[in-house]
């Protein structure tokens, strides 16, 4: 890696900003109220899900709708390893196990499904979440005879710190993948898979590995959240909402830069947390309308607006300088 990158002023600024945010977050529970920490837990959860979704789908262009599946697998792993009757493993190990189980599931499904192109892949991953939901309902009602699992509860603050660590690791992984050969290989798959294969990229391996890595973080987030929620059942764990929210948040924030999905997730998670319980139907209704409007009118997302705004501003400045002579050409 190029050392000079880190010495430039801009990088220093970014590093400082990241550090400041991390310090702010790490000390937050000492001055924030419990419910505010709870809001942060939701925000962190969505940031992890969104960034890990973008890690695979954003670059390769394979739209995965299996976030709910891997998130739910993590939750059920925690339900089995951290039950009400007494934890079998310490919490950090449970979170890692949640990630690993999701990783293995993703590896196996990836090997089967990543041969599928375009919409077939989206359909398959969509169905995968639905399948797990039905399998789990069957398992609970017909085999163990009761619905839902209870877990040993943890506090908001514990969940908050675990999620911060998972989030930092997710962002770090996303950053490293972006700036590695793996990331370049994924980008070339996203541009043209045939061309990538001809240039010697082992496309299947690249796709399966990143798919599994992204699933690891989704599973870890699920395993960290399940004990906080104390009770889970299939309709909580494998809710399709969790498959689509990260897509929406990523599209809203913009996927070109790493911070785009983070901003999108933070904004949406905050509004969800504050509005969803108070006005459930109207919230979901406006969620749908927002999704439609954003996709039509904001295809590059919020961060995609930055270059457009620069262009527009540049156009205005140029026009002022030339005294309005080049009105027609300023924006073309």
């Amino acid at each position, binding site marked *: 890696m190029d050392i000079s990158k880190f010495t430039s002023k801009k990088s220093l600024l970014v590093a400082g900003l990241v550090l400041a945010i991390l310090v702010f977050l790490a000390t937050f529970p000492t001055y924030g109220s419990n419910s505010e920490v709870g809001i942060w837990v939701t925000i962190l959860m969505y940031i992890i899900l969104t960034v890990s979704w973008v890690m695979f789908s954003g670059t390769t262009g394979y739209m995965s709708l299996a976030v709910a599946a891997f998130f739910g697998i993590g939750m059920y792993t925690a339900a089995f390893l951290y039950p009400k009757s007494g934890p079998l493993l310490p919490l950090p190990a449970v979170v890692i196990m949640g990630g690993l189980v999701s990783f293995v599931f993703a590896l196996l499904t990836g090997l089967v499904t990543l041969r599928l192109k375009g919409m077939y892949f989206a359909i398959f991953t*969509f*169905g995968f979440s639905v399948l797990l939901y039905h399998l789990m309902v*069957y398992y609970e009602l017909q085999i163990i005879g009761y619905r839902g699992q209870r877990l040993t509860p943890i506090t908001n603050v514990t969940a908050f710190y675990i999620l911060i660590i998972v989030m930092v690791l997710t962002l770090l992984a996303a950053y490293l993948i972006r700036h590695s050969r793996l990331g370049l290989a994924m980008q070339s798959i996203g541009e043209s898979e045939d061309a990538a294969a001809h240039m010697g990229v082992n496309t299947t391996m690249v796709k399966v590995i990143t798919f599994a890595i992204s699933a690891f973080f989704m599973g870890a987030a699920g395993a960290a959240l399940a004990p906080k929620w104390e009770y889970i059942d299939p309709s909580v764990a494998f809710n399709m909402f969790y498959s689509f929210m990260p897509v929406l948040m990523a599209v809203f924030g913009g996927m070109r830069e790493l911070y785009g999905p983070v901003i999108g997730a933070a904004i949406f998670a905050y509004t969800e947390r504050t509005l969803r319980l108070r006005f459930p*139907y109207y919230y979901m209704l406006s969620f749908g309308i927002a999704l439609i409007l954003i996709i039509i009118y904001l295809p590059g997302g919020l961060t995609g607006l930055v270059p457009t705004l620069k262009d527009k501003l540049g156009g205005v400045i140029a026009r002022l300088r030339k005294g309005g002579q080049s009105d027609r050409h300023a924006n073309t």
Partner: protein
Amino acid sequence: MDKATIVWVIISGLLNGSIYALIAMGLSIQYGVAKVLNLSHGEFIMVAAWLTFAFFTSFGINPLASAAITAPLFLGIGFLIHRTIFTTLRKRAPTPAAFEGNSLLVAFGLLYVVQNIALLIWGGKPRAYFWLTSGVDILGVRFALNNVIALAVAVALGVAFYVFVNRSRLGKAIRAAAQDPATAGLMGININWVLPLCFGLGALLAGIAGLLLSMCYSISTFMGIGYTVIALIVVALGGLGSIPGSFIGGFILGIVGSIVVQFESALSMVAFYALLMILLVARPKGLLGKT
């Protein structure tokens, strides 16, 4: 299995299968021609089912006769939705693949819009009405008359739709638009009219399917997503965009479903999915998909 069970499995499989076929053909024409993978397809089914319920319980309108209202209404709504939302989206999309991804997300947004409006109007509780519940004997097994009528209507409509797409002049324009919208446009086909029409036809089929479903089963505001998933499975099974593939796939899924229900009713969705998984691994483009 004794003879009565076999007859039951076949007839109820055909009944569900014929409705699945209608739903899947609707989704298939929406995706195959208009290139919208309509995740809100099931919500149209749900709304039609509630409308039929309302017409029957409030005004005493015969469910089959209410098709005279439902069919044009859904055709019109589908046409307008495509004309306003998806046409804009298509014109703004840089590539066809980008349009497919974006339209899937917009359709998902539509799912939430329709479902929550329905929740505000009809609430979340399942309801049912009873119409022609007297039994008829088929090879010694009794079926409710409404189920048999629904089966007949669904098969007739499915065949009519297939003939329409394959034999009529408009059907030819639709097939041309499915192959290559740009070239079809050069050949004098008005794409801005044909694509919305196809989306409307898909909504119409969903509407009739919802109407038939409300005759046979109880309905609820949350019923849509299950049928969307079934339609997706059938459409992927038959080959994305292949209308005969969807027709056949619907019946296959219906029969498989009624066989599985004999052993373990909770596992029917699992069986559908397993079937799809095996098929996609063996034939990644579906049964009748072009490779």
